[in-house]
């Protein structure tokens, strides 16, 4: 939608806000300003309560208040487990950031980029578990690649005994994390892109003889990275925390710290859970420490790049090798992920599919018919939850973005590792008797969906030309009328996109759904992860496919509806 002006022309975040020196306007102003703050506090409350609950749990070890921490420190696997959380987290984040920036620098505006963007967007909606399972089947020694190449190219009649999966260095885990984090960072960057006046700046630098990479570093990177910092933090925190990815792709002797914490927390013995809670607090400290280190590295990197830019080097020779590298890597990751997802679908209809057969030898819909009832039921629960949560999140996001402080605060649930406050929070739900209900799951999901709704809606909302509202007000329209008949219709496409994003995020929620729903609220994702632990590829394939289908339908609707609604309005055709 071309409604916005360049950022420089915008006047303020909320141009219709009434100047506070006018007595008649003061009451209105107060309530409109206070509401978003109130909501932000309401969001912070459950997180604080959950954190408190986790601390109490850590102190509840039967042999003493600090015994859980002592046991944790005494665990031999701790150093390695910490390393497995921190190092792949850092590497995956750095690689995702680098790939995002390199793709933007070298290919933004090109047809290859448009294609990649179209392919990456649906990946954002793919649940981590499904992506990881697909990837695992691709790279395993008995995986699809090995099957396709055997025995004619490799000579293997049985899979080789090599560790391409669950490797002790976490390489498979890193690959999986990048596959999920790259789309997120790239799409976040694209949301900020219109504010950066990028095409003009890049053209200007090109006219000065700069290569694309150098031009990007000098002209776009500083303002882009300033906006991208919080999403990057969220990615780093997530990469260090992901339980599903760690379980499926990561090593197990020992596992990553977050996986080990989940194991402790799920252990029925009275001593294990406090150790898990202590581990969760240690993990929180690690994430905060990692964010600090990242900030330091960021500063060093910034100095280095500024130094490079200041030399006035044009760096035209850099573009080709950089381009080949980042295109190759992105292509590889995209290819593996998409083929992996396709393999899930194929497995769901596979009969016998032995090693060296590139395709199943027999096909069967047994899984679909056997699990049909469960599949329909879970799909219904998942879609209903997703719809409720998406509507609530979008409505709340509309209110929250009125407050200029929202954007930083909204990241708190994304940056704080879920493990640190979910155990305490689900205990809280139990205490107030709300556990196991759809309402509890919806509320819990809302905490994690709302940030994405705000992230999705804020850029187009703030880019909306303030003169629309000014003109309408000057024509005599009240703030309410401006909101309902002007802002909302003008934001139809971004609102629908926000609904679709929220819907997709809701569908992907695993730990919050599991803990608030007590296992009774069965969504496609909780089912898929439960099954994934069983390794039944056929069933996981069926669930994984439906997990992909729902968000895909939502995004298709978000694209098609504005076109249909505004088919007679050329300037409203959407993105």
């Amino acid at each position, binding site marked *: 939608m071309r409604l916005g002006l360049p950022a420089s022309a915008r006047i303020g975040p909320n141009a*219709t806000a009434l100047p506070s020196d*006018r007595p*008649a306007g003061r009451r209105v102003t107060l309530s409109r300003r206070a509401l978003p703050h109130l909501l932000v506090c309401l969001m912070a409350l459950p997180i604080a309560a959950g954190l408190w609950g986790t601390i109490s749990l850590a102190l509840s070890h039967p042999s003493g208040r600090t015994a859980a921490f002592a046991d944790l420190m005494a665990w031999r696997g701790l150093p390695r487990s910490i390393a497995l959380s921190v190092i792949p987290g850092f590497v995956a984040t750095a690689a995702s950031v680098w790939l995002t920036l390199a793709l933007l620098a070298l290919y933004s505006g090109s047809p290859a980029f448009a294609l990649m963007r179209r392919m990456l967007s649906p990946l954002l909606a793919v649940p981590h578990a499904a992506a990881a399972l697909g990837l695992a089947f691709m790279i395993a020694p008995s995986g699809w690649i090995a099957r396709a190449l055997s025995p004619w190219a490799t000579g293997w009649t049985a899979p080789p005994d090599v560790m391409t999966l669950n490797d002790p260095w976490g390489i498979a885990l890193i690959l999986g994390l990048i596959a999920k984090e790259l789309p997120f960072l790239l799409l976040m960057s694209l949301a900020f892109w219109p504010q950066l006046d990028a095409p003009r700046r890049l053209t200007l630098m090109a006219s000065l003889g700069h290569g694309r990479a150098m031009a990007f570093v000098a002209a776009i990177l500083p303002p882009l990275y300033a906006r991208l910092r919080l999403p990057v933090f969220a990615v780093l925190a997530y990469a260090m925390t992901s339980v599903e990815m760690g379980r499926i792709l990561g090593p197990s002797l020992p596992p990553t710290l977050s996986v080990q914490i989940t194991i402790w927390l799920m252990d029925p013995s009275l001593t294990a859970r406090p150790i898990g809670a202590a581990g969760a607090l240690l993990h929180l400290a690690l994430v905060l420490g990692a964010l600090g280190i990242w900030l330091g590295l960021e500063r060093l990197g910034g100095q280095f790049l500024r130094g490079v830019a200041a030399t006035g080097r044009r760096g035209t020779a850099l573009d080709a090798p950089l381009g080949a590298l980042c295109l190759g890597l992105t292509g590889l990751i995209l290819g593996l992920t998409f083929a992996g997802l396709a393999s899930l679908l194929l497995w769901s209809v596979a009969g016998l599919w032995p090693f060296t057969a590139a395709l199943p030898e027999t096909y069967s819909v047994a899984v679909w018919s056997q699990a049909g009832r469960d599949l329909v039921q879970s799909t219904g629960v998942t879609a209903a939850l997703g719809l409720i949560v998406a509507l609530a999140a979008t409505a709340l996001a509309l209110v929250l973005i009125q407050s200029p402080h929202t954007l930083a605060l909204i990241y708190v649930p994304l940056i704080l590792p879920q493990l640190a406050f979910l155990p305490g929070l689900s205990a809280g739900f139990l205490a107030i008797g709300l556990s196991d209900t759809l309402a509890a799951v919806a509320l819990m999901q809302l905490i994690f969906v709302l940030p994405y709704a705000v992230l999705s809606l804020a850029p187009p909302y703030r880019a909306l030309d303030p003169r629309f509202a000014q003109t309408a007000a*000057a024509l*005599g*329209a*009240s703030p309410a009328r401006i909101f309902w008949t002007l802002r909302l*219709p003008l934001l139809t496409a971004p609102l629908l996109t926000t609904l679709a994003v929220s819907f997709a995020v809701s569908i992907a929620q695993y730990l919050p759904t599991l803990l608030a729903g007590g296992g009774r609220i069965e969504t496609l994702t909780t089912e898929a992860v439960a099954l994934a632990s069983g390794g039944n590829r056929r069933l996981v394939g069926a669930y994984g496919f439906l997990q992909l289908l729902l968000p895909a339908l939502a995004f298709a609707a978000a694209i098609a509806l504005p076109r249909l609604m505004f088919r007679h*309005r050329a300037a409203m055709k959407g993105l």
Partner: protein
Amino acid sequence: MLQIEKLTLSLNGAVMIRLTATIAPGEVLSVMGPSGSGKSSLLLALIGALPAAFAQSGRTLLNGADLTPLPTAQRQIGILFQDDVLFPHLSVAGNLSFALPRGMDRAARMAEIENGLSAIGLAGFALRDPATLSGGQRARVALLRALLARPKALLLDEAFSRLDAALRAQIRQLVFDQARARGLPLIMVTHDADDALAAGGRILGPMGDIITL
């Protein structure tokens, strides 16, 4: 009659506008100055939509009533921006209807819209998508929309700068004629000497200094 009394706007301590002026019905006051001199902020202050970052003092009276405590919607001042700012999701008629006072019945609305469109040479354009109109047609619809809201004064923010020379003179004349015919005091912010000369009224700088061309 629009009276501006010692209206002072400052941003981060720097005074950008200091103005005292009285504009009679049908009179045009031109405010000229280089870009970045805060001319547009003056108009936002007059309609009551000044961003909170600005500090403001002084007052404005329209036909004797103090505007300062009123929200934008109750000030009855029309404004035309550099772009026409037609609402892209509404038809031409939808845009015009948005401006009409509430409480009119549908037939009366349609009649007034048709009459207005005929008067500016756009009869039969009611159901058109604004995006399909030419620049001149859009400018005329924007003017008509501002007038249908029955303003008591009209503000122009570089309203002609996007139009080419021939069209510019034509639209400019149309706006001045309509304002005069309705006896509206008019303030035009511009950096273009031709606009200011065509207006034929006083020309002031942002600090209230008189400019002679």
